[in-house]
């Protein structure tokens, strides 16, 4: 993320091309923007929902025709407004921002929880393209909350990617947490790297496992964001700014912020609150 890149990254307004439901609460929104189409897996953009809010969302895919998408779960006012928009509506985008996932190693375990799958989906595509042996674990509360089922099942069939689903209520795939399943997978197979995104406690557990099994580790974190360009200080975790030094952190950097991971964050007012 060079100074030049930031300087020329003013907000653009774009038309929504299409909105595709992933499940009852999650939609994928397609639009065309040149800079977004150059994003690395794990990078995010700030999406302006005019008159409502501006929120960070990961790029979930980029298509050869120059369009990109974000995949958004309805959790509050901004995400509700966004998931209700339709083709032809206008949103603003700035970005892509931050440091994405680094593709490394030959065997990758991808562990995603809920909409944490958004940045991971793009990563999975990139890994498969690069010939990496990929195992994907997607976890959610119940079958209604899983996303990208089609895309992942397709990859499994056509590219031989191992895809495992798990739900807390057992309504689809395995029963239990994504990390429980990950532990089982790790016992049976040697991986070079674990990529993860999702609820921070899940990330924390995955991090502990990575340490235990001596596997390399990269996780995408979330914090409250305003500027996305590293000046407002809203998104800090320890000495790092998630928007600039993350959102993807590697093993070494996570080690430096271990005491906060899954433990503590700052809210909009800058008060420390539990994660």
């Amino acid at each position: 993320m060079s100074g030049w890149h930031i300087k020329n990254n003013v907000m653009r307004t774009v038309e929504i091309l299409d909105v595709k439901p992933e499940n009852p609460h999650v939609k994928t929104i397609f639009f065309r923007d040149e800079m977004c189409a150059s994003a690395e897996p794990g990078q995010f953009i700030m999406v302006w929902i005019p008159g409502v809010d501006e929120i960070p969302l990961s790029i979930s895919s980029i298509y050869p025709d120059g369009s990109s998408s974000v995949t958004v779960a309805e959790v509050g006012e901004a995400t509700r407004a966004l998931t209700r928009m339709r083709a032809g509506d206008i949103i603003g985008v700035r970005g892509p921002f931050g440091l994405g996932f680094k593709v490394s190693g030959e065997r990758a375990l991808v562990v995603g929880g809920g909409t944490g799958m958004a940045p991971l989906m793009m990563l999975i595509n990139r890994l498969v393209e690069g010939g990496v042996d990929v195992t994907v674990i997607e976890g959610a509360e119940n079958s209604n909350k899983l996303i990208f089922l089609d895309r992942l099942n397709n990859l499994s069939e056509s590219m031989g990617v191992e895809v495992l689903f798990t739900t807390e209520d057992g309504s689809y795939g395995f029963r239990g947490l994504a990390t429980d399943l990950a532990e089982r997978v790790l016992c049976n197979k040697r991986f070079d790297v674990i990529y993860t995104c999702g609820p921070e406690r899940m990330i924390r557990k995955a991090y502990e496992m990575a340490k235990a099994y001596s596997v390399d580790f990269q996780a995408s974190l979330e914090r409250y964001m305003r500027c996305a360009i590293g000046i407002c200080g809203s998104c800090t975790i320890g000495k790092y700014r998630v928007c600039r030094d993350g959102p993807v952190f590697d093993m070494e950097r996570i080690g430096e912020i271990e005491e906060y991971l899954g433990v503590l964050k700052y809210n909009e007012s800058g008060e420390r609150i539990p994660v």
Partner: protein
Amino acid sequence: MDYSALKTHLAGLSMPNPTMLASGILGISAGTLRAVAEAGAGAVVTKSVGLKPNAGYPNPTVIQVECGFLNAVGLPNPGIHKFIEEMGELRDLNVPLIVSVFGFSPEEYAEVASLAAEAGASAIELNLSCPHVKGTGIEIGQNPEMVKLTVRAVKDRVDRPVFAKLTPNVARIVDLAEAAYSAGADAITAINTVRAMAIDVETFRPILANRFGGLSGAAIKPIAVRCVYEIYESVDLPIIGCGGIRDWRDAVEFMLAGASAVQIGSAIALEGLSIFKSICDGIISYLRRKGFRSVSEIVGLAHKK
């Protein structure tokens, strides 16, 4: 490199160099304040803190325009009581920790400032200049009489150096500087952002949720240099220059205009935290090339021409 030529003494503070982190930039958490100090800043100023917790405005709060940044963050802060806990982690900071405070009355400023001072602030900077928060901007910072009352109220309660940070959104910034001076301020920080706005032509909407915000970055540098130059001619106080500084040349330009130190804000978005070191390195080479032994020798030099 030998940085001793950069040592700066300002209103009783000793700084290893004249660069400081500007208020509102990263300075809300102990972690980033420490990171900025480690990156080479000569002092750090915290985000402006008030009496009570405040969530600020909804997003968009910070956007980019062609030549700078517009922000209307709305002074989010955890309130001084919680912030004191944050400061507790910074006891061993190796550069001065300056706490920026705001309030909705002179008494409130004084209350927050005295709590910050008790908690170990090296100095207090009074944010008399937020261009977009009702009750503290126009009503206090643009009014010389209120500036005087506020500085005096704070000076009465606090035994640390007090900096008055002024707004350029007035007809004569020197009137504000003189008011601060007469009330006993120890230094002037100039400037805060310039009131401004941006409208999106596709949606017909002001982009910032608050509609109005403050312009910072390269756009305001010539305005800020002018303010520093004017204040230097009008009051006998050290000045901390701020506004659009991006490299050593900009920093030197402010010092020639009369600034004893400089604050860096928006440029961190473009240059990262390494900006403090690169500005210091640039100033050192400049001083050598021009034959100065100390950075203090260049302060105000443009007035002799």
